[in-house]
């Protein structure tokens, strides 16, 4: 039996999908059942991640990519992540501004998401949102992530193809960052190719790549480097070609192996979220205060109390 909400999502209803995305974003219990029901309908979409520093032109680029996917008849779901303000918990989500030319196209669904304190450039809800778009039958899902340090780019765990966007003129100190990016980029996009310094950036990336690949045994393929000017569209056809090549090579690869990696990360992410919720519930239960008082009164010690806390958490009970 499919619940009404999940059924409406499967029927492609934008309103229902948007509502489920919000429930997932809020960590609402109601999201869980619907997502469980949607799962058997997933696994068909092609997922493209776009990461890079703020202002590097990701949204402008995504807008162009949406256009090119639409031109081949593919429908596109887009998830655009922006940071939550640590001060207010609010956010201004402005990625859409660059993509609004697609607002009237029923084959395009754009959703803005705030990180809500989650690290790694994605919101906690991003995997659920990918799943919803996938179940709705979108052919391509583009995820624009908040550019962060090289160790924290979560999107690579979910994307089939990851673009890393770099721009000239950020100074030498990003050299170190680029080394980490080698691990995650399937394609390097050197955007703002109309800017001075683009040649130098290209040289730097090529050097980094050859050093890195020489050090890593068995890695024979180098990620392609595409120069683009997203603002004008220059270089886009070559980028689209590179994306298409990567997608084709994936289809030849063992699909199962990729799914194993993706699902392992997904299961861990879900379990971590559940654990956090349980942790909060346990830590705010009145019995927890009693336990704290016991420690203060000297009837028990913090380690024994922590054991009792964990035991209660795993029983899904109060302390």
């Amino acid at each position, binding site marked *: 039996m499919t619940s009404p909400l999940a059924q409406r999502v499967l029927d492609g209803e*934008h309103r229902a999908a948007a509502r489920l995305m919000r429930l997932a974003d809020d960590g*609402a219990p109601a999201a869980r059942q619907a997502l469980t029901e949607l799962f058997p309908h997933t696994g068909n979409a092609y997922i493209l991640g776009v990461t890079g520093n703020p202002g590097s032109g990701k949204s402008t680029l995504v807008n162009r990519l949406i256009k090119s996917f639409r031109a081949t008849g593919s429908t596109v779901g887009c998830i655009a992540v922006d940071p939550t303000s640590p001060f207010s*918990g609010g956010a*201004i989500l402005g990625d859409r501004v660059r993509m609004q030319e697609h607002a009237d196209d029923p084959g395009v*669904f754009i*959703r803005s998401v705030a990180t809500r304190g989650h690290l790694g450039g994605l919101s906690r809800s991003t995997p659920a949102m990918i799943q919803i778009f996938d179940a709705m039958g979108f052919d391509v899902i583009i995820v624009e992530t908040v550019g962060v340090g090289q160790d924290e780019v979560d999107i690579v765990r979910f994307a089939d193809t990851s673009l890393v966007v770099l721009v000239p003129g950020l100074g030498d100190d990003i050299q170190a960052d680029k080394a980490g990016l080698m691990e995650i980029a399937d394609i390097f996009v050197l955007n703002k190719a109309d800017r001075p310094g683009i040649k130098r950036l290209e040289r730097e990336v090529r050097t980094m790549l050859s050093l890195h690949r020489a050090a890593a045994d068995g890695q024979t393929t180098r990620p392609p480097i595409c120069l683009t000017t997203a603002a004008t569209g220059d270089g886009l056809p070559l980028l689209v070609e590179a994306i298409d090549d990567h997608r084709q090579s994936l289809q030849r690869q063992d699909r199962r192996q990729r799914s194993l990696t993706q699902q392992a990360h997904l299961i861990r992410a879900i379990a971590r979220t559940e654990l956090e919720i349980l942790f909060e519930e346990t830590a705010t239960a009145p019995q927890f205060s009693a336990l704290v008082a016991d420690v203060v009164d000297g009837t028990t010690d913090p380690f024994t109390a922590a054991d009792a806390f964990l035991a209660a958490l795993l029983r899904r009970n109060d302390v």
Partner: protein
Amino acid sequence: MTAPTTYRILIGKPGLDGHDRGAKVIARALRDAGFEVIYSGLHQTPESLVRTAIQEDVDGVGLSILSGAHNTLMPEVVRLLTEEGADDIFVFGGGIIPAEDIPGLLDAGVKAIFTPGTPTTDVIDFVQTACDEKYGVQESGE
């Protein structure tokens, strides 16, 4: 319907005018008050704003109009939301709006109109209350 953890608001600029300073001031004030604000950018049609509001599952839409076309654009957004079965999304407006136009706009279903000089805090209070009412939340105390 249980209340969401975070309220979401679309700030839209329908029509031809190219001034978004006021819209951005409100967007920032809402963010600083803890709202998630989706900003549409300039030159939107009522249709694209309604699609955006639905895809983003916002609680309300704020329309900033300085071109003088508020009498057509604001009621049109309300009408399209209703047509899409999304009339639970409230609409409020701001901009250079003559006092004599305000009753007509309110009649057409716009929930509030803010004219230049309104303190930003008034707008935030209105949005907070409108969202709380929507979910039957008693106090806006966080």
